[in-house]
Each structure stands twice: as C-alpha cells, then as structure tokens.
C-alpha cells in the first residue's frame, strides 16, 4: 500500500528495501512477460531467457538499495537483464551479440514462434536478420514505450544514437516488409 504523497516508483523502492513479499510477487507478475520479451528481442534466443529472467530477479532482490524510486522501475530491471544476458553470452556461451547480425533466421526463431498473424509472420524473418541493437531500440520504444532519454540511459548511448538506431531498424524492416508485399 502506498504512503501519502508516495509515487508508484517510490512504493516499489520501499517494498524492495523491506523485502515485502506482496510487492515482490506483484512485480514478478507484472513484469515477467515484458522481461522475457525484452530479452528475446535483445538476443533472438528463447532457450536461455528463463534463466536470465530468474537471475535478473535475484539481482534485483540482492541490490534493492540501487533502486531509489526516482526513475521507472522497468528501465532499471531491463538494464540489469541486459548486462546479465550480454555477459552470460560473452563469457559462458562464447557468443557475441554483434556476431549474429546478418545471419539467416533460424527456423525455430522465437519471432516465428510468436507470430500470431500475417503481419507478425512477415516481420519475423526480418527481425531475425536485424542487429540486436536495432531490435532492442525498437522493442524499448514501441513495446515498452520508453522515451528516447530513458532508452539512452538504459543502453548507455546518446539520445541521437538511439533515435538513429530506431530509424535504421524501421527502415530495414520496411524494406523487407515491402519486398514481402511485392512477393505476395
């Protein structure tokens, strides 16, 4: 329950500091799907995502004082997940996210599996071929509806770079999209 004059973010920060089980359960329920979706867009992998998501929550609980409630909780959560996934791929699985660019889409791609209509199916292949930094910028802007400033803080790049990644990502998707339309 919120205290008088307390924002939602401050309530979450207080709940985390006190290890309030109600708040923690509520956060996992509210953000688990979004966390999984963000990690899939970032890495184009499904098989490690549940482990990363669980470890992300454990880190959230281990470092509750790092979140002071002044910014959005989801940007903090995604930034933990981002570092964790990138480190894990680099160190233990010997994979760099950059190396995936321009590789053909795996038929078991999580995007194909998650495509529920024709529009999504048309995008799935293009998304798989898109670089992780572009997919990440797109999911954060259009799914999570973060502002350019918030994305910039999360990924640690200037606002202009973020805007340029979104623009370039859209451009590449549009080219594939129109090619698909012409094929049909």
């Amino acid at each position, binding site marked *: 329950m919120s205290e008088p004059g307390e924002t939602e973010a401050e309530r979450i920060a207080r709940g985390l500091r006190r290890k309030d089980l109600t708040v923690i359960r509520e956060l996992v329920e509210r953000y688990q799907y979004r966390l999984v979706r963000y990690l899939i867009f970032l890495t184009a992998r499904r098989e490690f995502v549940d482990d990363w998501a669980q470890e992300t929550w454990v880190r959230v609980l281990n470092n509750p004082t790092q979140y002071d409630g002044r910014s959005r909780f989801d940007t903090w959560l995604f930034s933990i997940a981002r570092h964790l996934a990138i480190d894990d791929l680099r160190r233990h699985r010997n994979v760099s996210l950059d190396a995936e660019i321009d590789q053909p889409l795996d038929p078991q791609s999580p995007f194909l599996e998650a495509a529920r209509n024709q*529009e999504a199916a048309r995008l799935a292949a293009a998304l798989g071929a898109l670089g992780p930094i572009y997919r990440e910028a797109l999911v954060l802007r259009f799914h999570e509806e973060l502002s350019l400033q918030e994305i910039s803080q999360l990924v640690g790049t200037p606002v202009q770079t973020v805007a340029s990644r*979104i623009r370039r990502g859209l451009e590449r998707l549009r080219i594939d999209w129109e090619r698909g339309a012409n094929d049909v």
Partner: protein
Amino acid sequence: MMFDPHQRARFLIEEARIAGITPQDSLWLRHHASDCMECARYEESVAGILRGLNSFAFELDPGAGARVQNAVLAHARKPSPAWRWALAAAVLLLLAMVPVYRSMRQARREKADTLLMEEVESRVRRVIPLAMEPLIQSQEESQ
C-alpha cells in the same frame, strides 16, 4: 532544412512515432499524404510494421513462471548477506568474550580471597594479644 516534400513527409512519418512532431508538422503531413499516394503507402507500411511488432505474443512456459516466482520468493525470505555477516560477527564476538570473562572472574575471585585473608589475619592479630593478657598478668604476679 528539407526541400523535398516527400523526403520531409517520410521523415515526419517516422519522427511522429519516434520522438513526436509538432501539430503544424502533423497538419502538413496529413495534407501531403492525402495528395501523395506514395507517401501514404509509406505511412501504411510503417503503421503495418508497428502493428506487426505489437502483435507478437511470446509464450511463457507456465512451469518456468512458477519456478521463477518460487525462486524469487524463497530468495526474498532468506536473511540478507548483511544479516548473515552481522550474525556471524555477533557469534564470534561472544566466543572471543568467553576467555576475557573467565579471566576477569578469576581475578575478581583472587582479589576477594586476598581481602578475606587480610581480614582474617588482622582479626587474629587483634584477638590473640587480648587472650594472652591474663597469662602475662599471672606470670608478673608470681614474680
């Protein structure tokens, strides 16, 4: 400054979704797109891409979801590392205090014993001369 109206229109179509555009730009864009089939088609492509992006539905493994919930809640119930360190420090402090406490108690006992002995000795010194007095007197009389 963009002089090509189509280039400007396409920039604004994307910018409207990325960072937002002014009402004047929005009005200009509506006006342009109503007259330009190609830019209208471009706008429809961008809108279709965004609809497609938003329609992905990733399945959450229900077992994995429950595992995450349980692991997170179990972790939250555990005492934090800071508490564990504090507890360990308190135990160590107690263990370290035992020999100190014992030696203090020993010293106190020894001091009490010394005081008792002094007390006994002083009483003995006072009592014996008094007890000897009649004997000394009778010896003096017989002489």
